[in-house]
């Protein structure tokens, strides 16, 4: 318990460093957000007034202190380009990314672990070899390219290859343009298929490579041979002696991947035009919307740090050796 508390303090210090670094990075970069907001016809006095009202005239340490004070009060400031609170901007985009990331994370781990298990324990070496090659290829494919390839397949590809018509999937957006708020769920589901596939295929490939290696390493341990030598059934040994130990690296991987739930879909959101956090980030960077970029970085950092804490906790629960 004491060690857990220590980890939490570490995490808070880490968050402070991250936000400070981001703040410094943003403000050291050339360019000034006010220049993008000021109308070309504005006089120098009007421009100055805008800078004052945005707080951009203050010296950097003062801006930093103000921002830090607000963050500690749970206030991330106002978006410069959209004149709404940063919290609202993030709250609007978060569910989209959570949906994409959450569903694909579960799919990746379920599919990937099963595939890795089959490869490590049941497949012939030839099948295992081909599956390894396939997962390596899928894992290497950049998501934006995979997305475009799938879009080409389900649009013009359907016609050229003579595939059945239900194969024709909507390629962009979250629902049909004509759809109202009460748009049918099947329409939304059809729109979600491609983005989820693009996120899950490389995800599952990565997990399967990891799971295969973890199970193989666990199976090489001396206590496994000894269990076989004692005449225990294969299923019993695999279930009780191999999988239990293969779990540890998979939990670490889960902790590392978890932040991807909100951060992993930047390209997919961009290609499929889903208004999630990634698209918001890209838009904010383009518009020099400092408060939004800072707020999002903070959200990402909180996600990474708390995922690491969660992974530690899960390891502690799964592996009795760590409780000593």
């Amino acid at each position, binding site marked *: 318990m004491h060690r857990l508390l220590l980890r939490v303090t570490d995490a808070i210090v880490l968050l402070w460093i991250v936000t400070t670094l981001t703040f410094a990075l943003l403000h050291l970069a050339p360019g000034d957000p006010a220049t993008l907001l000021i109308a070309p016809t504005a006089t120098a006095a009007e421009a100055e007034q805008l800078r004052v009202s945005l707080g951009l005239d203050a010296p950097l340490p003062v801006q930093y202190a103000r921002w830090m004070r607000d963050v500690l009060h749970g206030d991330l400031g106002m978006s410069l380009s959209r004149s709404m609170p940063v919290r609202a901007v993030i709250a609007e985009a978060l569910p989209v990314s959570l949906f994409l990331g959450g569903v694909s994370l579960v799919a990746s781990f379920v599919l990937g672990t099963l595939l890795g298990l089959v490869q490590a324990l049941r497949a012939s070496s030839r099948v295992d070899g081909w599956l390894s090659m396939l997962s390596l*290829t899928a894992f290497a494919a950049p998501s934006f390219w995979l997305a475009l390839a799938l879009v080409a397949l389900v649009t013009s590809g359907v016609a050229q290859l003579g595939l059945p018509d239900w194969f024709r999937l909507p390629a962009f957006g979250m629902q049909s343009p004509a759809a109202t708020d009460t748009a049918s769920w099947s329409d939304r589901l059809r729109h979600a298929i491609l983005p989820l596939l693009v996120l899950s295929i490389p995800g599952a490939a990565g997990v399967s490579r990891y799971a295969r290696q973890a199970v193989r390493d666990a199976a090489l341990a001396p206590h496994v041979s000894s269990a076989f030598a004692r005449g225990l059934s294969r299923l019993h040994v695999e279930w009780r002696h191999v999988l239990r130990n293969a779990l540890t690296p998979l939990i670490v991987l889960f902790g590392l991947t978890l932040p991807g739930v909100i951060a992993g879909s930047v390209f997919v959101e961009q290609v499929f035009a889903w208004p999630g956090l990634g698209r918001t*980030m890209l838009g904010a960077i383009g518009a020099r919307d400092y408060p939004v970029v800072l707020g999002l970085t903070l959200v990402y950092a909180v996600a990474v740090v708390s995922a690491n804490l969660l992974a530690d906790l899960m390891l502690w629960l799964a592996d009795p050796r760590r409780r000593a």
Partner: protein
Amino acid sequence: MSIDSRWERARRALGWPGLFLIVLTMAAAITPLLVSEDARSIGSVMRTRLVPPFSRDAYGAWHLLGTDAFGRDLTVRLLMGARISLFVGVAGSVLSAVLGIALGALAGWRGGLTNRVIVALGDALLAVPRLVLLLVVAALWSPGLDVVIVVLGLTGWMSVMRLVRAEVQGVRLRPYVEGATALGVPSGRVLRRHVLPNALGSALVATTLGVANAIVMESGLSFLGLGVQPPTASWGNMIAGGREWLLVAPWIALMPGVALVVTVVCVTIVGERLTGTPASPTRARRVSPASSAQPAALPRS
């Protein structure tokens, strides 16, 4: 000795992936010498544009992979893009390796406050997804080749730093290091001659796998328009450029991706061969020799 057996020996030493990478690098290196400036620039667009793979344009010139929307030959452009992508990948990860080795050695050798500052900095950078970090930095400074390389270097050194630091800490108290110090060898020389060589092996493997990651990251940045700017070809901005022609001429966007995937797969296999992790499909060893090494470069977006 016949060419066949020489080829066979090279293939056995490097494997297909290594050989592919060498051939690709050489082809990319000599492309500008073989192909005239004319063939690489935009000619009479209307007569040569959007030629499908394996066919001839209106002048009767044959195009292996077809042409793009401006009538440029895709094969040539792919090789020109390979120059950029491979260079950025290698330069970016070499830069991060140099940073990682220097900081790791410093942290492990000096210990104390230096160690804690460097480790905290590394942890802080790891707490932000690399892509987000890349986006912020690449977008705020004006995009270009040098910015991409520097940014890749600055955001990729953490894993090498950790490896080297752990290795240096482990070796620092060994008798032969103490002995060298006792004999009056200056501290810097002890570090260079007796400590660092132990750490270079694992740093090399991390760097090789980092190349794959850097190539993917560069293509992503260029795809978003934050990396290498057209008309300079990079696989990422070629995919972006083909996006609007996806329905009419899918090969423009898809071919650079195929090149990218094949290259990344090859780099990864070479890297994993170095660690001794069986990754190669056809010759996967049944029992991996005590490899605690996991498939690297996870997670990724």
